[in-house]
């Protein structure tokens, strides 16, 4: 088997964080691949929800849209957006996966505009379900490649809440207590958020990357854990399942 690429590393690292019996709200792409991989390895009882209304599908292949027919294929229920979002709002959903054009040290995300809102240089899709999932799900995970422009000190716009301005700002703003960003999985490392300041902190390096590279490819000051771990590379079993069952056409893992 050929060596893994960074996308495969990111998907495997994300999949391992989903324990059996957990609930997760996912979108298309890498998050969906991570959920499918988790289900086919250590977490067969992972409950997967799609925002448009798909509940617990037996995914025959990677969906193209979070509302396409695969998202409720052999599912237990085909419902609507309020049902899914309110299941999250009631506290039943452990994890969600998000991404964005910009992320800051508190895990806030921008998927709306680059430049000023009234005269943007680039118009992006907007929140979609991201603001809702990040507000309601207990733990938000972000899967994204890192570079200095994406990991920025200067957010053009906060579409989706992380820890806002840090400390207790998130709870004070009125968002449900105990929620917030949990892990950021990049092409180089895994980060968590320090308990008091809620600043992003490197906790694990992927094989082949140094802490200097992680710091150099980030536009804000990262905290670094006292004991830095090393992310295990994808196992042959994970790679086999990922390549032959989860994404045989290489839509996601072929992008790296």
């Amino acid at each position, binding site marked *: 088997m050929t060596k893994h690429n960074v996308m495969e590393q990111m998907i495997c690292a994300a999949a391992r964080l989903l324990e059996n019996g957990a609930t997760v709200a996912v979108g298309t792409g890498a998050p969906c691949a991570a959920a499918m991989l988790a289900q086919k390895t250590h977490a067969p009882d992972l409950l997967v929800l799609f925002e448009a209304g798909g509940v617990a599908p037996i995914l025959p292949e990677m969906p193209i*849209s979070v*509302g396409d027919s695969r998202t*409720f294929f052999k599912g237990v229920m085909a*419902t609507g957006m309020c049902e899914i979002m309110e299941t999250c709002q009631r506290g039943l959903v452990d994890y969600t996966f998000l991404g964005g054009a910009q992320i800051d040290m508190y895990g806030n995300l921008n998927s709306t505009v680059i430049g000023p809102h009234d005269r943007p240089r680039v118009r992006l899709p*907007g929140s979609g379900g991201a*603001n809702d999932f990040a507000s309601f799900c207990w733990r938000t995970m972000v899967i994204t490649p890192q570079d200095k422009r994406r990991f920025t000190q200067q957010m053009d716009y906060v579409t989706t809440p992380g820890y806002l301005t840090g400390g207790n700002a998130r709870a004070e703003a009125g*968002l449900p207590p105990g929620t917030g960003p949990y892990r950021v999985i990049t092409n180089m490392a895994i980060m968590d958020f320090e308990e008091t300041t809620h600043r992003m902190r490197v906790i694990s390096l992927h094989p082949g990357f140094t802490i200097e590279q992680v710091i150099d490819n980030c536009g804000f000051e990262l905290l670094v854990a006292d004991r830095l771990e090393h992310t295990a590379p994808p196992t042959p079993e994970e790679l086999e399942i990922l390549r032959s069952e989860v994404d045989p056409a290489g839509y996601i893992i072929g992008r790296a």
Partner: protein
Amino acid sequence: MDVVERGRGELFTSPDPDEAREFFRSKNKSLVPKVMSVREAVERFVRDGDYLAIGGFGANRIPTSVCHEILRQKRRGLGFLGHTSTHDFQILAAGEVFDRCDVAYVVGLEARGLSPNARRYMESGKVRITENSNYGLSLRLKAAAMGLPFLPGRHLMGTDTFVHSPASVTTCPYTGKKLVLQPAVYPDVAAIHVHEADVYGNCRVRGIHISDLDLARAAKRLIITCERLVHSDEIRSDPTRTSIPYYLVDAVCEVRYGGYPGCMAHEYFSDEEHLRQWLDVERDPEALAAFLQANIYGVADFSQYLELNGGMRKMSRLRRMELRIRAEEGNHDEA
């Protein structure tokens, strides 16, 4: 309840439930046949300046024929509910039919990429924009479907999405917790594509309904396109399956493959080739103009558009994809 904070996003529609009640009181609720062509439905029920909403989820169960017809009839100055909106938004942006938009998700086509033309249109300054989230717009429709002026939620707070939204933050009178209030949206007109309807407009939807059941109840005028007309006896033989009743509906149009090039659950899968073609031609405004002329403006109706894009042979292939009928099970194109 005291308002702690108010978003500065423009409110494009009145959330007043009594104005809506007056309208719904005057709406004709008699059991009469409403079958008509898409052309007639758009002529009669979509007016310049209306606030429009489209059902489905972007490229899933969307009433594509109504979007095309709105372009052909050159509607102008519409407001648009940009809720989970992808290919529908792409079409309407190509026709420049709207000048104000509530945004939850627009411009993108999910995993397929971003629409270059929709992006240009949204960056042009021609569109007034108010932000929200998908659940935010679902809640705004649900509030209207309930006949209320608003509903509370626990999202948006602390973000720029709130700042550019029409929502308010208040304190809960029972718990003292902060809540976001989302104002009801009563669209002037909505179009929803369903699997089956009878001539009166009783509708059956299979699979996920997204926010369409609330949208059908929130909208003042409602155009239904359906894959198949069914006899009213069939509807009455199993009323559990009716999710949109006739008295909400103004027009019923039978449009087979009416969700093309999107996915229609249990019927046909999306045509990724054609959707990619849209994204490709949009890179060049002249190519886009020629493409729109060939596929929409110069076309008499939706069946002609289907013919142009592969006709029955293509539809059969998409149907077999949706039903996951493999080659060894007889999935081969007819000669």
